[in-house]
């Protein structure tokens, strides 16, 4: 599903790319730009976003419906515009999250832009802020580093116009030419087994002494009668006194007749 989102098959959507410190979502954003967009107009809000050096092209305070619409109208052949924001976290630091959501929604509904794709660093904001941006989005892609160092994992959630929700989790990697390769689809998200294909190791191999038995040795072992395992005949032979064996004569002694409940032998019950 990640490739469908990246190739922009969904027109008129709001795609949210979430990342954290452990894996940067910017590479995926670049991949989207290179595959889905035909013409890229770059507006530099990086060199002077707060007006400190006095030569800014676009400041963060200009992120309003009017200013962004003017900017878009200035670009030639502006129809079916896709707005790419890298990164929304910057704007969220300087504006109230509610205002940002309102402006993004207004930009989309107002027809100035058709598709919006933004990059948000989830570990820089409170959960509520990220949650409100998520509500605006029709597709959410969360990237995280993959287990065992194999590329990265992307969890994609897509909401179609009919309201159906589709989710997917895939391992991917980005090549030199910014194309995305999907490695595997994990249908059970959240847990990877340790590889159980390993054959069991034979402990008697590779030793300096011999632990194995040859056939004759095995037969001799099985024939051996163990000292305290008795067959029926041996048991009866031992139990019955044979001729000449010692006999035990016993005469009960008064001291042996010890009653636990009457040690002095004076109860008359």
């Amino acid at each position, binding site marked *: 599903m990640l490739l469908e989102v990246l190739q922009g098959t969904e027109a008129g959507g709001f795609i949210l790319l979430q990342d954290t410190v452990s894996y*940067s979502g910017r*590479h995926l954003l670049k991949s989207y730009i290179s595959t889905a967009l035909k013409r890229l107009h770059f507006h530099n809000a*990086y060199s002077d976003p707060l007006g*400190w050096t006095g030569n800014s092209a676009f400041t963060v305070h200009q992120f309003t419906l009017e200013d962004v619409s003017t900017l878009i109208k200035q670009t030639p052949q502006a129809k079916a515009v896709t707005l790419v924001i890298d990164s929304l976290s*910057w704007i969220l*630091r300087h504006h109230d999250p509610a205002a940002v959501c309102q402006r993004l929604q207004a930009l989309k509904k107002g027809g100035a832009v058709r598709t919006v794709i933004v990059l948000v660093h989830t*570990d820089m904001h*409170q*959960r509520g802020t990220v949650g409100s941006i998520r509500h605006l989005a029709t597709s959410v892609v969360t990237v995280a580093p993959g287990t065992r160092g194999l590329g990265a994992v992307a969890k994609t959630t897509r909401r179609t116009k009919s309201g159906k929700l589709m989710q997917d989790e895939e391992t991917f990697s*980005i090549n030199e030419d910014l194309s995305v390769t999907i490695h595997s689809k994990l249908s059970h998200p959240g847990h990877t087994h340790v590889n159980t294909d390993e054959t069991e190791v034979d402990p008697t191999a590779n030793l300096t002494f011999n632990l194995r038995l040859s056939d004759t040795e095995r037969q001799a072992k099985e024939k051996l009668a163990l000292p305290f395992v008795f067959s029926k005949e041996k048991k009866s032979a031992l139990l019955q006194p044979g001729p000449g064996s010692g006999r035990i004569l016993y005469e009960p002694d008064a001291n042996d007749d010890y009653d636990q409940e009457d040690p002095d032998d004076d109860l008359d019950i």
Partner: protein
Amino acid sequence: MFAELNSILNSSPESFKQGEFILVSDRQTDASFLIHHFLSFYLRGCKVCFLGLVQSFSHYSAVSQRLGVSLNQAREKGQLVFLEGLKESLGVLLQGDTSNGTPALDFLRDPSSGLRGLYDFVHGNIRGSEGRAEDWGPPVLMVDDLSVVLSLGVSVGAVLDFSHYCRATFCSELQGTMVILVRCEAEEEEEESDEGSERLQRGLTHQCSLTLQVQGLPTGYCRDIHGEVEVCWRGRCDGLQIQRKLFQYKVCDKGTLFFARGTSSAVL
């Protein structure tokens, strides 16, 4: 300059990657040995602007002498611009007169104004010597350490704005380098707090291209191994592997030894 660290980072004073933003962070240990390394590394041929907010000039001078670099000479030649935060702050706090003292430390008077004054100071010093800029290589900005301004009342957002502007000027425009040290305190609450050195460190990590995270050993104090360093390259997007390496280190009198985990000379 530590030779082993140079080979780990694949750089040498003659050839190092330009436009890098190096973030050095530490948690419950002291990573300033890396600052001394980078200072002596870049003074081999670049102009360095050093914002020393936590130690005096003589401290760095004494340590650099052991590593073979003379800071006094560099300052006289104009190769090193050193902002002595501790000394200048006295002027700002005691006299309270706006005409005295540099505007660089304006945030001490008014923390809510942010670090714009500091940025203007840095910007001015790099631009000011435009005529002689060809003598030295690309400019380098070093800050030791940036998280101390958080305890002086500056917000995390203001610090991130400052580092963004420095990055736009030093790394992107002038193709120089930036090295920043932040120190994180272990936070007790598990909830993400809005202000705090952890959030600052995360924000700076998003902006940087190379991080060196220094931590003490999880098992406690050891005489022969002083801690672990995790080096993480962020700028690249290699096909499959994300570039991360872990080393242990021991700080000695004239340098630092780096070795792979478990291969300390005391253990082998």
